[in-house]
């Protein structure tokens, strides 16, 4: 049921039954290293190209998910998946052998939550019982997609972020399934916001306003206060973007500073690691950090009410070269251990 401006209340409260994550070497060495399901020491994952490697990260995460819930792929109704590569090839090639009806998504770094929202809506409406959503990114394949060749000796400004190599996925099921798992209670799909930032090395600043809009709208629509949540988790705003988010929310009379955390800040040691600059980014950032770390914390009931907000920058190198600014989006989903 739609409430307020753009939020949906999912009365049948679909369950987020299980999640799965896979990451590359740098992420495995980071502060959250222990929480990921699959850690791969080789950035190529034994493949010949980075694109194939990304595909394998995603495939491995999905297969691991199926194993965790002991389901064959023919028991899955649909799969939603997306990544950062042209024509979403990591997703398409991952799903190629799965024989599950497939929807390809492009929401840049917001894809993980976009998929989660669509899967939850389908399950809530009774159109499916078991739906997988997933997303992936790879540092080397996205550098190539969006920036300079890897071996080019250039510097990255402090506001730049480091694309996470990894994938994450989850299984949304009807609440009829007995197993204890968190529920999806509300979803707030975002609108595109563009405040004119065109600096590809400052994505945090480009995406922060979208996160502000979606978070404020969600709180208005549901009548909740930020303190209602144990954590408001954004995807990959990084250090700078997070500061801007908190700042702009405050200007609207909403203080989220006590409950806000950002996957991009959590996944790397942004203080001591020179390379990551402002933090992690990419679809794989929120995908691996939520699937690995935060979902685990929810299962352990260390946190019970979460607002997960994934932000995405929807430009392409072509549009940037043509002088366009960066249109940004943020999707939010409320995940709670108890339903009242």
């Amino acid at each position, binding site marked *: 049921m739609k409430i307020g401006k753009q939020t949906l209340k999912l009365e049948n409260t679909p369950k987020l039954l299980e999640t799965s994550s896979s990451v590359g070497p740098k992420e495995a060495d980071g502060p959250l290293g222990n929480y990921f399901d699959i850690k791969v020491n080789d950035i190529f994952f034994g493949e010949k190209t980075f694109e194939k490697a990304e595909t394998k990260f995603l495939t491995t995460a999905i297969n691991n998910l199926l194993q965790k819930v002991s389901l064959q792929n023919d028991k899955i109704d649909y799969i939603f998946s997306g990544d950062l590569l042209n024509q979403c090839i990591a997703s398409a090639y991952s799903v190629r052998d799965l024989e599950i009806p497939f929807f390809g998504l492009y929401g840049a770094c917001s894809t993980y939550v976009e998929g989660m929202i669509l899967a939850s809506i389908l399950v809530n409406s009774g159109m499916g019982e078991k739906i997988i959503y997933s997303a992936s990114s790879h540092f080397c394949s996205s550098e190539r997609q969006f920036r300079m060749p890897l*071996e*080019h000796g250039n510097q990255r400004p402090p506001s730049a972020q480091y694309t996470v190599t990894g994938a994450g996925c989850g299984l949304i099921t009807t609440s009829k399934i007995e197993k204890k798992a968190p529920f999806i209670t509300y979803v707030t799909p975002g*609108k595109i916001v563009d405040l004119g930032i065109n600096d590809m090395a400052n994505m945090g600043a480009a995406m922060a306003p979208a996160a502000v809009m979606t978070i404020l709208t969600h709180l208005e629509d549901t009548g909740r206060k930020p303190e209602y949540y144990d954590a408001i988790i954004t995807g990959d705003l990084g250090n*700078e973007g997070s500061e801007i988010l908190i*700042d702009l929310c405050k200007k609207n009379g909403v203080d989220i500073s006590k409950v806000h955390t950002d996957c991009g800040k959590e996944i790397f040691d942004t203080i001591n690691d*020179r390379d990551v600059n402002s933090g992690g980014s990419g679809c794989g950032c929120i995908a691996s950090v939520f699937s690995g770390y935060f979902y685990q914390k929810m299962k352990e009931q260390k946190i019970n009410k979460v607002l997960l907000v994934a932000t995405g920058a929807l430009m392409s190198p072509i549009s940037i070269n043509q002088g366009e600014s960066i249109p940004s989006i943020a999707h939010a989903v409320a995940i709670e251990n108890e339903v009242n």
Partner: protein
Amino acid sequence: MDTNKFNMTKEEYKEYVDKKSENSPILKNVLLAFLVGGIICIIGQVVTNCLIAKNIDEKTAKTFSTVFLIFLGAFLTSFNLYSKLGKYAGAGSVVPITGFSNSIVAPAIEYKAEGYILGLGSNMFKIAGPVLVYGIFCSFIYGVIYYVITMIR
């Protein structure tokens, strides 16, 4: 677009972001660029001087020195070392001719995955191509002007 939540125009937001963003550590960057750029130039001069000392004429010695630096840049790039240098040296590793060489080898390595002709071959000059285009075109304009002036004289 409903931007009244922000109470700021695009210009104001840009200004706000510029103020907010952490500046590059410019003094440190410039010092490192100076140091590395200067050293690369010294290497070039040492090679030139050594060759001149061996009775090779100056022009050939200079050309040889350029070829050597280009080799050095390509060599360091193919062993994944030039990007490590670039992280610290910035413009100090971009501007010398070794950086030109790096900008040719880097995409060539990366696009090898798409094959030797449409990958490596066609992407080799992805970054360095414009340098040749604008360098040669500028020299053409200069040539025309110079030619006209010599004609008038």
